[in-house]
């Protein structure tokens, strides 16, 4: 009997061992190893040599780093505002029975099915200066002065790319809020109406607070996604013109795989990691709170 109990203590480890080993080798280990690589002069071919903090000293003097960081911040701020508000508004509108609601929902989440590469290509063509849909339409209605080189103007380009990201994100947020709304007890809303709340007050003081858990997840997902931004930039501009649309991930990729400065690339990764760590820890403490409730 005593032996049986002893053996059963190992049962969870028996289930965990293989996935956990794979996870440690491919995900957790590399995360830590990035820190080491960032302190070396690794070029991807020869052995890395330890060079201390030289990569970081160089990084903090590199103008492209600051352009990339600013672009990530622009991306992040756009992402936690526009898609969240638009997605919530759509979810509110489509959660009541409106004719054709299935078509509307499908319309908004259809961009999510496309890969970022495909989205980037399709939009690059929409943005095409001479024959793209956007400029063609602007010219045909006499708004020629608005027809720009969307991806070649260094003040516009990052916004033009963010628009594509938002185009994909709105449907995602809408789906999450629709699920959140479906989980709200209708009795609460009826009660607020009986108490004399108008539609806005019901939304502001009953629905919105009840949706807080969804909002937290939406915001965390949006932040993480904005830090992951790579594919669209890579396909649409490769960070150009003159690095004006560079983001950290793209900057890292170019330094590491085009310029063979892998140690330098690792230093950029570490910065990216430290920024995301703030949000990961925030989220983990939320999970911890939820877990302690029962």
């Amino acid at each position, binding site marked *: 009997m005593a032996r049986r109990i002893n053996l059963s203590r190992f*049962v969870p*480890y028996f*289930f*965990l061992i*293989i*996935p*956990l080993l*794979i*996870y440690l*080798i*491919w*995900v957790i280990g*590399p995360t830590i*190893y*990035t820190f080491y*690589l960032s302190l070396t002069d*690794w070029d991807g071919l020869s052995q890395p040599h330890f060079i201390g903090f030289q990569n970081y000293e160089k990084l903090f003097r590199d103008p492209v780093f600051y352009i990339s960081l600013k672009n990530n911040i622009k991306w992040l701020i756009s992402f936690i505002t526009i898609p969240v508000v638009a997605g919530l508004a759509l979810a509110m509108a489509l959660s009541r029975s*409106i004719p054709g609601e299935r078509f*509307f929902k*499908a*319309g908004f989440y*259809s*961009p999510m*099915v496309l*890969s*970022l*590469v*495909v*989205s980037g*290509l*399709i*939009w690059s*063509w*929409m943005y095409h200066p001479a*024959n793209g*849909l956007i400029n*063609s339409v602007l010219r*045909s209605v006499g708004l020629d002065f608005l027809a720009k080189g969307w991806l070649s103007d260094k003040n516009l380009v990052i916004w033009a790319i963010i628009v594509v990201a938002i*185009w994909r994100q709105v449907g995602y947020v809408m*789906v*999450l809020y629709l*699920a*959140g709304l479906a989980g*709200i007890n*209708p009795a609460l809303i009826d009660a607020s*109406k009986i108490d004399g709340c108008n539609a806005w007050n019901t939304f502001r003081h009953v629905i919105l607070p009840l949706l807080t858990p969804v909002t937290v997840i939406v915001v965390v997902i949006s932040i*993480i996604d904005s*830090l*992951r931004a790579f*594919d669209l930039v*890579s396909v649409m501009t490769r960070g150009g013109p003159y690095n004006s649309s560079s983001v950290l*991930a793209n900057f890292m*990729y170019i330094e590491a795989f085009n310029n063979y400065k892998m140690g330098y690339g*690792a230093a950029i*990764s570490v910065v*990216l*990691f430290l920024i*995301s760590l703030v949000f990961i820890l925030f989220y983990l403490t939320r*999970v911890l709170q*939820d877990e302690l409730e029962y």
Partner: protein
Amino acid sequence: MSVKKTFLSPWRSLLFFVILLATLVWLLPFVSAILTSMRSNDDIITRGFLALPRQISFNSYKVAWTRGGLSHYLPNSFIITIPSLVLTLILSSLSAYALARFRFRGNRLFLYMYVGGMMLPFQVLLLPVFRLTDALGLYDTYWGLIAFHTAFQLGFCTFLLRNYMRTVPGEILEAARIDGCSELRIWAQIMMPLTLPAIAALATLEFTWIFNDYLLAIVLLRTDALKPVTAGLATLQGQYVTDWTVIVAGALLATIPTVLVFLFLQRYFIEGLTLGTGK
């Protein structure tokens, strides 16, 4: 939600038309792409985007499929996606079972590791994984890519399946244990069937994610013949720089598998997206 049968009051009709308009604007990129893919490049350049096409042709699709290489890029995507998907679902359901139903030292730590890892911008792992893949002799092979997809998706899948498995009533498992059922059999014959709805939702979502990956493919593969369709499209774009009809036709062809998954498994896809929030 209280359903009021005010049938299209003025305010609601306005709302209806605003949403209709927004949806149509949302679909414009698709319209632009489909119209473009069925015309010839000369026709667009000489007569403009908004002109009625002189003739409709599917030649761009043919060029993208054959000379553009989609005929081998697309199968590659499946060769990479399917094993990654199967492996990650099996492995994560194993670890999810351990984390969901057993109290043991390290449970909390491992869970946090999975959740933390799932939120990581995976670009952070790129250089060490590149080095690891190379050291294992898996650089420029399907398996190098499959191994990473499997490992990286473990975090998200384990987290979601664990939460789902916690909702299974303990009495069922207890009854099986009393009947002398081994833990492995409980996992395979009781837990897995009960978790199937979550696995279906997760599979749909993960299929799209792995299929749509681009960055890892360009980092871990070099040979053109091995590239999945996302990386292939980037090559195609470089090849047909100015011939947008071919690029756009290729992009549309590349989308067919995920669109099919979405059309037929839409319910699961949406469930998958919301699995993480609904607890």
